[in-house]
């Protein structure tokens, strides 16, 4: 019995939701006229909006997860970590307080300046920098690993060089032929290979979707019971 409402019922709900969306796709035309089409459209729209609302709830998971992990570090005074964890929790709480007071849609508007300050000078700065620091690693990876050891590696290197040259404004201006070569490679080799990968990937995604709706793939349910 307990497995019925812990596992089977959610799988049945997934199936029902999926079937309704699929029926909406096949039954409802662009301009629904029949009453059943209008009803189906309304049901589909409502469920889509419900899914979006539930997705909004999931954004808060990170905070809960991080709070659990780092509060454990603080309570156990993990050597070399607990003070970083304490700082993390402090900053997170400040951000939440300032954010609730500053987020326009929430209508409280007492800490808009502070909210903008933290998002611009702390969050945006750190996020942009984290993402951009990969430039270092890709450069050192190119220098250390890009060797023409085999014919395949040489071909990869040549295509890489041509592409890089075609995206270098100096070469674009003074050696425009490299753009034509790169465009040819892009139009006939890159596009075709990625089309093959896309078709194969789409087949896989469609099959995975069907398997999930039929309850054969249950990874989204989390831990096994």
């Amino acid at each position, binding site marked *: 019995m307990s497995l019925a409402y812990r596992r089977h019922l959610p799988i049945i709900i997934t199936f029902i939701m999926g079937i309704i969306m699929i029926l909406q796709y096949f039954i409802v035309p662009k301009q629904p006229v029949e009453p059943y089409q209008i009803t189906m459209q309304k049901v589909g729209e409502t469920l889509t909006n419900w899914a*979006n609302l539930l997705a909004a709830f999931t954004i808060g998971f990170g905070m809960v997860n991080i709070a659990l992990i780092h509060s454990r570090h603080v309570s156990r005074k993990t050597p070399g970590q607990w003070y970083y964890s304490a700082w993390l929790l402090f900053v997170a709480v400040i951000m939440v307080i300032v954010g609730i007071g500053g987020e326009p*849609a929430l209508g409280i508007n007492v800490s808009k300046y502070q909210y903008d300050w933290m998002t611009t000078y702390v969050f945006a700065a750190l996020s*942009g920098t984290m*993402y951009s620091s990969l430039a*270092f690693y890709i450069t050192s990876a190119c220098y250390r690993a*890009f060797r023409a050891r085999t014919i395949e590696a040489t071909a990869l290197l040549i295509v890489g060089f041509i592409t890089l040259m075609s995206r270098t*404004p100096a070469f674009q201006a003074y050696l425009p032929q490299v753009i034509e070569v790169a465009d040819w490679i892009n139009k006939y080799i890159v596009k075709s290979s990625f089309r093959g990968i896309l078709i194969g990937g789409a087949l896989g995604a469609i099959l995975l979707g069907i398997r999930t709706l039929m309850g054969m793939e249950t990874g989204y349910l989390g831990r096994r019971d």
Partner: protein
Amino acid sequence: MAKSPLEYIESLPREIIYTILIICLAVPLVKPLGLPVPISSRVKEWHQYVEGLPDGAYVLVSVDYGVGSLPALEPFMVATLHDLFERNVKVVIMTLYSDGPICYESLITKVNPDAYGKQYGVDYVFLGYIPGGETAMKAVAENLHAAVPTDYYGTPLNQIPMLKDISGASDFAMIISVTPSGDVAQGWIRQWVTPYGITYMSCVLAMMMPTMEPYYPAQVKALTDAGRAGEYEYLIGKPGSGIRKLDAFSVAHIMLIIAIIIANIAYFALKAQKKGGA
């Protein structure tokens, strides 16, 4: 045992590589070389589609990037909004990223719609972050007012003049998405292009271009990468951050090409040395 010069060059310490990279990127930013700015056909095509918008047309602009990729994507988005605001079109802006509103605030400050005589709620509006990813795209396409009750600032949509008569995708002439994510870029095709046939223009990071190429030009009418922001700025006569980066791109790319060639020469020279020694 001390390394030979060839061995040292072949496995150059990463600190030296990083320092050379920073110099090659930073110096041209401060002291531009003044190299010519060639405009690619992709950017011209993008501009032509924007130019071809009829008066009063509604355009959905989706700021589908977060603060992590803001430095790369914002210049192109700024140039696009400059191009749109020069015309008599209605711009509905939204985002599918939770930190998208921060990007919007940064972007709209740089664009300054007031300078074009554009009024919020009449000529442009920001719907804020809509959670759900592809289901959000679907919801907005089917019924905008049911999907998004208020704009970013909490004003009900039926009180916003330009949105009163807008129901969904079929009321839009174009959808523009600037995103680092292939899933998001493809999601717009699935939810807006395939069912409604809306003209779709996509700007992605350069590394996502190959994954989007198969959709061009049948499903994505204009496809370009954010690194071409400088070309777009030059084309529309609104120089900004994009143009400043072009010379730095030149120097850094040339540095990388030379570095890889030197590394390969060192590698083959060492190999020959070892063979000769053996």
